[in-house]
């Protein structure tokens, strides 16, 4: 037993001084350790010695007084004047060709031991072919030769610089970048016409002269190493794979052709537009993995000034399947020129996952990766890669299970949960570690079979324990268990003062990181050691707020905000509390409970305090992202904030979930799915994430995928979550128009669960009862709902009166219907007045006016709603408002308009379900209209058609 293991407030650290990673090399992404000679990147310094063997070419100058004309030595007929560039391919000199007395650029390629005679011959042939190209945009080659085992060629000296260096000094405007690439594309087309493929188009191979004109160099050079088809060699010569086409990365030389150069042009365009290459991982392996497995991030997400069409042109070049790129460099040049002249472009947004499926089907990723990796592995040693490839990869991840509360007073449960939460949060900041999010571990509160937990969550370790608090004394017991062998990796008990709580949390996190051999950067180390607050009362208030958030954020909004406000009043520098407070205000605003500017002001104040307390902290950027998204629908701004947040919260599922939600609202569904899948890796049981993925697939008619994700969501949901019981019945209702499973599920919940739970499912019950035309049940369900909980369809909030009016109409009591609708109208008018810029509020008013027969008003309001929030602004809610306009039109007898809008609503992403159209009394006015029936039939499940 360890007594008061650590003094309060002291950083916990008892490991001996070890070699740590001090930083990451900005050039190669390699780790620089604290013992690196002179603090430099060992790999890059060693590489600086490559490509030149000192004895051969260089004789030191005689110390002439004018360095600019100092000779560096001689190389055959060339006098070397100055080194002007170097890379994996060799060194470029400014040199004087003596017999012709002209100044040239001389490239000397130290091929080392692996260039065979055959390679050299092929290189010569390629270079000589390229030398015959005569085009102002191609750097002319004067001479090709070999000397002392090195290849060399001399070419025209372009005074200016490499494109990447030039733009580093002064970035190009977007139009100029497009113009430049169009120009280079025409040059590349010229070479293609002569049957010459460049194979290595990248910023370093584009030279800009003093007039800013581009000149392409190094034609066919990549061919030098290509024939043996090992990626390793190709990489050694070509350097970074960041601009490499997928067919090259897999060594699939048969596929290398004109389209490979189109890819290269797109990659350079991408770099110019965004300042980043299309793919860049920390290592070559990661870069290739990204290249083969992911789509490039749309340029607009880096820089929102980039026009959608231009972004589309760029992405079309970067298609994985060469056949989906532009058919020629000329076609690319022409499309760019159309864009420059503001004419329509040929490239179409493909967006969705369909983009690369064809190519992927033909070339399964695993096979591609394996091909690339086998090649890499030969150079690096198979063992290193094996671990990354072996299936299934039971990673060194960890699940921090809820701690058992052994306190006598039940109210100390929040402290025990807080303990778990804090340790979990600290560990999640370590980039090297996969940490399962809290929602996904809560289910395992009382389970003992760690091997099973390990398999379910795909983690190698589990941390579990118990804690109790009696007065000022706390007792904590923690144990780390290896799930693969069910053995203890580490265990410790602490008997301490309440004041030592934070130190204990830090120590446990530290020990876990050590045991899991996670590499800690210094900032991660700091994050582990940081105390959330020095005021334990404030911490207690905060822990209670967190517990309520975990339970049900929407229902507990005011209470959560109150607790957090108390916490920051006690400790005005309580960073985490400010972040949570901002998020709570934003949630109230977004979920329509208080959609007023005053609410946003409160959120903003909390965020400002968070940034004041800890500038640059990831959580503050996350809160800011949430605020921009929920408060202003500023998607680009929010995504930019999330990129920053991600740097310090690399394993935080919240970051990726929010990215996914935003991409979805912004209409980028493929990206949304990618981000949400990442979130699901980190939080594998979070029903919200899983269900959102399912819903996206559903909206695009991918039923099998949708069902698979839904099943995962249901399996992951906690057993006390009513959603677990309702999700599949809801699917039956929506997809198959079968209300019976929902009816039974609701009945079963009402028979077995407390009334509090019934009210939370009242919305499901209302819909189901309406579909079954059971007015009595619908009325009962409606009574359980507060005004701010009543919605017509997803997300359009409406009031009691509307449904009362609908009931009356269904019961053929038109007088009462008019009375109820009129009352509803008076209520909804107030809502619209309070938030006149909020589309859904207008949508609800339109529907009520339609109920009253105020045709003109109703249609105007329905359209106003759509103007304020069109699908371009919110791909989800905007489409719901389209459906709402269809409904209004149906109610006022405008059948043409209704069918027209409904046709839009059922186009992906669908905002109306088969079940609703088939069963709901809302759509009764359209029934028996053949156009309507046709739409309904088109949505029917396949076996019903």
């Amino acid at each position, binding site marked *: 037993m360890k007594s008061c293991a650590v003094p309060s407030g002291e950083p916990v650290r008892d490991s001996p001084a*070890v070699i740590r990673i001090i930083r990451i090399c900005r*050039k190669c992404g390699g780790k620089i*350790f604290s013992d690196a000679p002179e603090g*430099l*990147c060992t790999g890059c310094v060693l590489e*600086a010695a490559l490509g030149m063997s000192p004895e051969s070419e260089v004789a*030191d100058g005689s110390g002439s007084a004018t360095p600019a004309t100092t000779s560096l030595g001689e190389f055959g007929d060339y006098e070397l004047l100055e080194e002007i560039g170097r890379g994996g391919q060799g060194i470029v000199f400014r040199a004087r060709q003596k017999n012709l007395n002209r100044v040239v650029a001389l490239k000397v390629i130290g091929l*080392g031991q692996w260039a065979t005679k055959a390679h050299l011959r092929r290189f010569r042939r390629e270079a000589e072919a390229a030398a015959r190209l005569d085009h102002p945009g191609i750097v002319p080659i004067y001479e090709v030769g070999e000397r002392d085992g090195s290849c060399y060629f001399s070419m025209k000296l372009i005074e200016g610089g490499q494109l990447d260096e030039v733009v580093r000094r002064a970035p190009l405007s977007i139009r100029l970048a497009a113009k430049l690439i169009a120009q280079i594309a025409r040059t590349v087309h010229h070479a293609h016409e002569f049957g010459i493929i460049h194979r290595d188009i990248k910023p370093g191979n584009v030279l800009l002269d003093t007039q800013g004109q581009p000149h392409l160099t190094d034609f066919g050079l990549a061919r030098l190493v290509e024939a043996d088809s090992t990626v390793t060699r190709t990489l050694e010569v070509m350097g970074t794979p960041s601009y490499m086409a997928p067919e090259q990365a897999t060594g699939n030389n048969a596929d290398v052709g004109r389209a490979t150069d189109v890819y290269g042009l797109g990659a350079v365009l991408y770099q110019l537009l965004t300042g980043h290459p299309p793919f860049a991982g920390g290592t*070559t392996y990661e870069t290739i993995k990204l290249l083969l497995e992911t789509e490039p991030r749309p340029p607009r997400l880096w820089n929102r000034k980039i026009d959608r069409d231009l972004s589309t042109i760029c992405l079309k070049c970067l298609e994985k399947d060469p056949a989906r790129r532009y058919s020629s460099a000329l076609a690319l040049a022409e499309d760019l020129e159309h864009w420059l002249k503001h004419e329509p472009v040929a490239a179409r947004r493909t967006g969705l996952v369909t983009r690369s499926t064809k190519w992927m089907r033909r070339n399964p990723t695993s096979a591609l990766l394996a091909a690339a990796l086998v090649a890499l592995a030969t150079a690096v*040693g198979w063992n290193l890669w094996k671990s990354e490839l072996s299936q299934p990869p039971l990673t060194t991840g960890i699940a921090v299970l809820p701690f058992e509360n052994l306190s006598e007073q039940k109210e100390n449960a929040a402290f025990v949960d807080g303990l778990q939460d804090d340790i979990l949060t600290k560990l999640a900041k370590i980039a090297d570690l996969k940490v399962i999010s809290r929602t996904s571990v809560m289910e395992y509160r009382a389970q003992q079979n760690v091997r099973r937990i390990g398999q379910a969550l795909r983690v190698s370790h589990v941390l579990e324990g118990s804690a109790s608090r009696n007065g000022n004394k706390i007792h904590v017991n923690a144990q780390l268990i290896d799930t693969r062998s069910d053995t203890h990796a580490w265990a410790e008990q602490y008997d301490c003062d309440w004041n030592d709580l934070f130190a204990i949390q830090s120590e446990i996190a530290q020990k876990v990181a050590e045991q899991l051999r996670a590499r800690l950067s210094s900032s991660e180390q700091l994050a582990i050691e940081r105390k959330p607050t020095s005021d334990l009362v404030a911490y207690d208030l905060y822990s209670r707020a967190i517990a309520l958030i975990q339970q049900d954020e929407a229902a507990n909004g005011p209470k959560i905000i109150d607790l957090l406000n108390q916490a920051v009043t006690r400790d005005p520098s309580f960073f985490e509390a400010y972040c949570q407070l901002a998020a709570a205000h934003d949630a109230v605003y977004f979920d329509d409970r208080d959609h007023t500017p005053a609410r946003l002001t409160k959120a903003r104040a909390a965020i400002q305090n968070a940034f004041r307390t800890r500038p640059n902290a990831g959580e503050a950027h996350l809160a800011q992202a949430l605020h921009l998204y929920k408060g202003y629908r500023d998607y680009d701004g929010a995504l930019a904030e999330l990129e920053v947040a991600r740097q310090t919260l690399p394993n935080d599922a919240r970051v990726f979930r929010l990215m996914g939600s935003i991409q979805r609202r912004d209409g980028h569904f493929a990206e949304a799915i990618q981000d949400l899948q990442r979130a699901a890796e980190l939080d594998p049981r979070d029903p919200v994430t899983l269900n959102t993925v399912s819903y996206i697939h559903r909206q695009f008619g991918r039923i099998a995928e949708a069902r698979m994700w839904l099943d995962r969501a249901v399996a992951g949901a906690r057993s006390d979550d009513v959603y677990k019981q309702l999700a599949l019945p809801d699917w039956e209702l929506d997809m198959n128009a079968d209300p019976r499973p929902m009816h039974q599920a609701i009945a079963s919940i009402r028979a077995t669960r407390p009334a509090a739970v019934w009210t939370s499912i009242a919305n499901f019950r209302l819909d189901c009862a309406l579909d079954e035309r059971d007015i009595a049940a619908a009325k009962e369900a409606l009574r359980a709902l507060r005004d701010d909980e009543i919605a017509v369809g997803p997300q359009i909030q409406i009031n009691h009166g509307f449904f009362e009016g609908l009931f009356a109409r269904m019961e053929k009591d038109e007088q009462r219907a008019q009375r109820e609708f009129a009352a509803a109208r008076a209520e909804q008018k107030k809502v619209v007045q309070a938030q006149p810029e909020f589309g859904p509020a207008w949508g609800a008013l339109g529907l009520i006016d339609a109920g009253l027969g105020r045709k003109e008003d109703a249609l105007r309001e329905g359209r106003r709603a759509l103007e304020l929030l069109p699908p371009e602004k919110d791909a989800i809610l905007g489409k719901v408002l389209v459906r709402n306009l269809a409904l209004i039109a149906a109610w006022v007898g405008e059948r043409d308009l209704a069918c027209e809008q409904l046709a839009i609503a059922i186009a992906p992403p669908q905002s109306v379900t088969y079940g609703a159209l088939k069963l709901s009394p809302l759509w009764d006015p359209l029934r028996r209209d053949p156009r309507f029936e046709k739409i309904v039939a088109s949505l029917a499940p396949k076996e019903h058609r």
Partner: protein
Amino acid sequence: MPADDKVSSPTGLNGITQTGPSPFVTTRWSVVLAAQEESPAAEEALDNLCRIYWKPLYAFVRRQGLNRDDARDLTQGFFALLLERRDLESLRKEKGRFRSYLLTAFKHFLTDEWRRAMAIKRGKGQKPIPLDEMGAEERIEVMPVDRATPELIYERRWASALLERVLNRLKEEYRAAGTTQLFDALKQLLPDEPGAPSQAEVGQLLGMRANAVRQAFYRFRQRYQSLLREEIAHTVASPGEVEDELRHLITIVRA
């Protein structure tokens, strides 16, 4: 004197670069390998090599899970035995690189027979590597968090021991020429890392013109490359292996 002149007759290094025969004739490892019988030159060469490259072995044995004291004793014991017995016969059979030889020999040493022999040696208290040198290096612990194999650790540490030696020599040359500041500035340019000071910034810092910085850096890099190859040459058997060894080390560091 204008700053430019100061560097255009750079650091008094010209002689070192250009004079003397090709370094290969006298590389340490080739001397060791060539020695037919007891030779003081071979002994000294081996001793020198061991002093430079004990750290990778120490890291190797630490990675095997030994504690600091045991690792130190084992490494010391190994070198004591190696230097005394020299085992040159078996070395000559290997004809390989010193890097591979050292690890192979060390693995042999870790077998029982060698360890027993060491127990006797340790009694004599032979410490080929001065303890204070080891003490000063105590901070060199193997990362507890590293998942790499002991062999990979050994090779990585080898690369950094080599580079450390090279940069120390280079630094010493600049120090001797009274231009330590220049060394410190130019070394930043070596990895060509984005965000590092540019030549222009170095020029501003040292009050040198652009051309002067360019020339100074050119010579710096030449000298660095030359020293690096020289040090590598000391550990391989023939000149043709230098480039190969250099590429091998880069691959290892990049792994």
